[in-house]
């Protein structure tokens, strides 16, 4: 423009930023499944604070370290003392560390879904090609994956350590595999429960409190009742009581089918028949929380 009217050009015009104009986009539009995958990876990264502020990286990273350090110490001890076995079973590790896992799920489930609800970002997602089911699946899968990373990482530390300590390879590999299946189930179960609670509590603080309350109260109540049942010699009831909290539920499943020793009082896990019920309840809870999330987001819409 300045070239066309050199006389009219004011001194100020020379420092002007020239607008290069609007460019249209003719490139590919990758559609629904790509958008769903992007949401999954964004949510998974977000669960460890990646792509978010420094402040939001602190807690998840800290919890991750806290999960792994005991495993590293156990390995160091096993290598140093030339022990014949690891001090703790692969399947037992997550049960022992359940407080850390609960804290993690309580902090990250609300950050994953409550933010979108609280700041009403959800309509922006649904005004794009993705559907309700895509959103729910991406969020569910992302949180379950994040939990799996949290719970599987110390098992890998244990496994590698066990191999370095030259423990029996076949034995360790079998235990490691069983441990992975167990934490995978636990991740799915806790992610489902955590997300359902978080999706009905748009305020993040309430979400955190609610998830912690549900996980600890249910575990506390179940353990207490089991202890009472043990004292009263009604050990038959112990297994059935265990159905009512997520952690004891996974404990029951792995005791019955994954060669774990039960953490129940008296060490009496469910029998195979009872174990089948445990598996059904676990899968039912996972499917149920998926269904509840779908129902919740059907309502949110725009």
């Amino acid at each position, binding site marked *: 423009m300045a070239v066309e009217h050199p006389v009219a050009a004011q001194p100020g015009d020379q420092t002007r930023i020239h607008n290069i*104009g*609007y*460019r*249209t*986009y003719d*490139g*590919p*539009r*990758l*559609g*629904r499944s*790509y*958008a769903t995958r*992007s*949401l999954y990876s*964004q949510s998974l990264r977000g669960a460890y604070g990646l*792509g*978010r*502020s420094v402040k*939001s990286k602190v807690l998840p990273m800290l919890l991750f370290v806290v999960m792994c350090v005991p495993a590293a110490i156990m390995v160091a001890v096993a290598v140093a003392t030339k022990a014949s076995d690891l001090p703790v079973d692969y399947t037992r590790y997550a049960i022992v560390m359940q407080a850390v896992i609960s804290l993690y799920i309580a902090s990250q489930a609300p950050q994953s879904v409550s*933010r*979108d609800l609280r*700041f*009403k*970002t959800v*309509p*922006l*997602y*649904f*005004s*794009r*090609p*993705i*559907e309700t089911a895509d959103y729910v699946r991406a969020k569910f899968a992302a949180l379950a994956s994040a939990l799996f990373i949290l719970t599987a990482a110390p098992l890998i530390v244990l496994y590698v350590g066990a191999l370095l300590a030259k423990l029996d390879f076949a034995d360790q590999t079998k235990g490691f595999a069983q441990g992975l299946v167990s934490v995978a189930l636990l991740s799915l179960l806790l992610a489902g429960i955590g997300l359902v609670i978080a999706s009905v509590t748009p305020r993040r603080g309430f979400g955190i409190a609610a998830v912690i309350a549900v996980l600890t109260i249910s575990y506390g109540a179940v353990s207490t009742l089991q202890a009472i049942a043990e004292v009263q010699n009604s050990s038959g009831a112990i297994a059935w009581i265990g159905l009512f909290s997520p952690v004891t539920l996974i404990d029951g499943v792995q005791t019955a089918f994954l060669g774990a020793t039960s953490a129940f009082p008296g060490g009496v896990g469910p029998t195979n028949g009872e174990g089948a019920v445990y598996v059904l309840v676990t899968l039912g809870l996972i499917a149920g929380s998926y269904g509840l999330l779908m129902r919740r987001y059907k309502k949110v*819409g*725009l």
Partner: protein
Amino acid sequence: MIATESLSKRFPRVTALDRLSVDVGPGVTGLVGANGAGKSTLIKILLGLSPATEGRAEVLGLDVATKGADIRERVGYMPEHDCLPPDVSATEFVVHMARMSGLPPAAARERTADTLRHVGLYEERYRPIGGYSTGMKQRVKLAQALVHDPQLVFLDEPTNGLDPVGRDEMLGLIRRIHTDFGISVLVTSHLLGELERTCDHVVVVDGGKLLRSSSTTDFTQTTTTLAIEVTDSDDHPDGTRAARDALHARGVDVLDGSGGLPGAGHILLLTAQGEETYDLVRDVVADLGLGLVRMEQRRHHISEVFTDSGQGSEQSTEAQRKEAVGHGS
């Protein structure tokens, strides 16, 4: 661009849309209606997110009932309410939204930088959104609606909460979306006045029914109202009344500025028949020796559009006349 055919949406207790048939062509189209007139419901249906109770609608030639996902890929949407997370930067947020629209990562980043620049966000785009002013937030909301280069955008009350300057800037931006970017716009507002300046075409809905659909030039040119304000002088201590009487003597109907606002009594409204009315006003004011403070075209208020079908506004016009007579006597 958009075509609806006796589109209805009924909720258990309210009818949000009542057999609405409207055709919207390319360009900037204003959708005007009072709160609860069914504007947002219409947008939801057009995005394929809420099924219509009866009737059908097409957006970009695609049926909303069956091609919702295809429509949403080619259409942008800016909601009325806040929708931005405060703890991420505008750039991160808009990149994410671009990817949600199906843009590959590199294209998403490039388009985000372009779009944010076009809506007028520069260095601040790297700061968390929580610290933005309302005007900047509106720009981010607009950017996320444009980032995937849609063929059509729905803007729901984009000037809400903005100060007059911000309002003007936003309206200018909306105009540019069509003229510079080549994207058609459907913009809702409850203020007809601001849409008149921006839109090629205005659709007025009330109670879910179509009240009027016409091009903007249609209803600004058929009746132009002039507002004039004059000073007082020694000869004419009440200059306003003197001007009114003089104009009346020359056969021009004059109304008082309505609304009962402070100072409104000093404003005279008259209907301009054409160029000669302007000359007449000039001559009359000059003959009286008064100063002409303002002479401007008055835009219609939404209530005046309702005159066609609503009887309520007829009464108000009558009331205005009575008031004018009362002052005159």
